[in-house]
């Protein structure tokens, strides 16, 4: 098991923290957004439901936009645009 943070295209990034539990998904989400430029989009894949609530509130407070939120099996996928 390893976290993955990849550049998937121009202004597009992917963060995969499946298997990780609190606090790792929220910390890696915050760190990833810090590395990105304004308007860049992050697709975040994780499977720890407890992290979702924290991440949503963290995005709201920082002004980042949660453009899409879906579930695929046990995985949760957030598409986030950095403000």
């Amino acid at each position: 098991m390893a976290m993955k943070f990849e550049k998937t295209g121009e202004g597009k990034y992917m963060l995969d923290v499946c298997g990780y539990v609190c606090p790792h998904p929220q910390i890696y989400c915050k760190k990833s957004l810090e590395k990105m430029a304004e308007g860049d989009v992050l697709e975040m894949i994780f499977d720890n439901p407890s992290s979702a609530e924290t991440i949503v509130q963290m995005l709201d407070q920082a002004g980042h936009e949660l453009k899409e939120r879906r579930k695929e099996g046990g995985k949760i996928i957030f598409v986030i645009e950095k403000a």
Partner: protein
Amino acid sequence: MEDKKSQIWAFIVTGLMILISLIYYKVNVYYIYVVVYIWFGFAYGMMLQYGRFCFASASRDLFAAGVPRMAVGILLGLIFFSLVAAFLTANEMTTFHAGPIGIHEVVGGLIFGVGMVLSGGCASGSLYKIGEGNGTSILAIVGISFGQAIFADVGGVFNKLLPKEWVNNALSQTRIPQEKITSWFDYFLVGNVFRKPKMTLDEAGFMSGFHGITKFLLSDAIINTIIPALALILIIYVFYIRKGFLKKRAKQKGGATGFGDELSGIWGMITASKRTSLMGVLIGLTAGLHIFVLKGMQIKFGIFNFGELLERMGHVSDLSTNGTVFDPGYWYITTQEAQFGAWVLEKFGWNMHDNVYFGFSNGLPEPWRNPALWMSIGIIFGAMVMALLNKEFKFKFPKGELIAWGLFGGLFMGLGARVALGCNIGAFFIRVAGGDPGGWLFGIGMVGGAFLGVKFFNWWSERKMAKEMEAF
């Protein structure tokens, strides 16, 4: 189809708990005492899972992500619990007892705080996360269980490190049999912690002019709990929410903001996560009801401790030399896990009765006759049912670094809980709401430890991110 399966499993787990309860009742009516623990545990588990209620998350998310929802939820829980607790104390319907007040709580809280951030959940949070299928939390509970059991019994070379004063104090007392004082922890307890003062705020001199419910509401609830909790909510608002909220508000209004906007900001922070705040309130009320019901059971059976019922049923080998078993009378985690760890170690030939913690104070009942352990099991299954109903149950086998974080985090939590005589529930939540100012000392240590844990994880994740970013 998957949804249906989850629902069926939720019913199966609930049915199993009902069946266990009926069997206990059928075996002996005294076991209704255990059944009460099971179902309060079950209720805590459901609420903890639904509200994602975790004390690790409270300070960790605040420091790591600037998210205050859990800290606010816990403070709301404290406020409501303190009101019920004051009412129960005034009516002599409480099982709460104050703990020793001293620096050991700050030190224990600090160790515990580091541990809960490492393992990803506090003592109660780890239990509810097991119910979600989180394998790392299983390792955390393993660490808590065996860490405490070993720490409570280890002497030998460690006893050479004991301060002379503790040894002399332990040797000069007559309440606890000398043959039970064998481990480092025994000397720490008998020669140091047990000698520290205990009090709830209603016993303070300045409260002598007050009587009845007014006295307990004013001292234990309002002064000891509600004012500090509200002050903390305000501090969290000022440091984490205010600036961003007022900026947004000013932009919306196109002008200056006022006092009304400040109040909206505070209210917005409280209601940002309704499920967490609502569960905070419900958990607070349930913890109060739990005390009330257990006190009622004790009055009904004419006992002060479940050990008396075990003795009536002939299970004397379960008891401590004091004639008791661990029966907190309220929501509590960690000692029952330590008992489980000690029970397992005894099966491998380790004598766990020759110390104060198990041998004199808490006993070592068989796990199926351990009321507090059943409460922990109830928490796991209650959380499992809630997770299944919300389609959030997924077994995650711990891998890689999470194995180390889970085990070491659990170990740290276990050590911290023993030093402080309790965890985030027994040494903080219950004590503060019960009017014991010592609970705040543990809270200060726990938050300090969480801060250090977050600093460590920030450093760790930064390293890993840098490695990942080498590719682009």
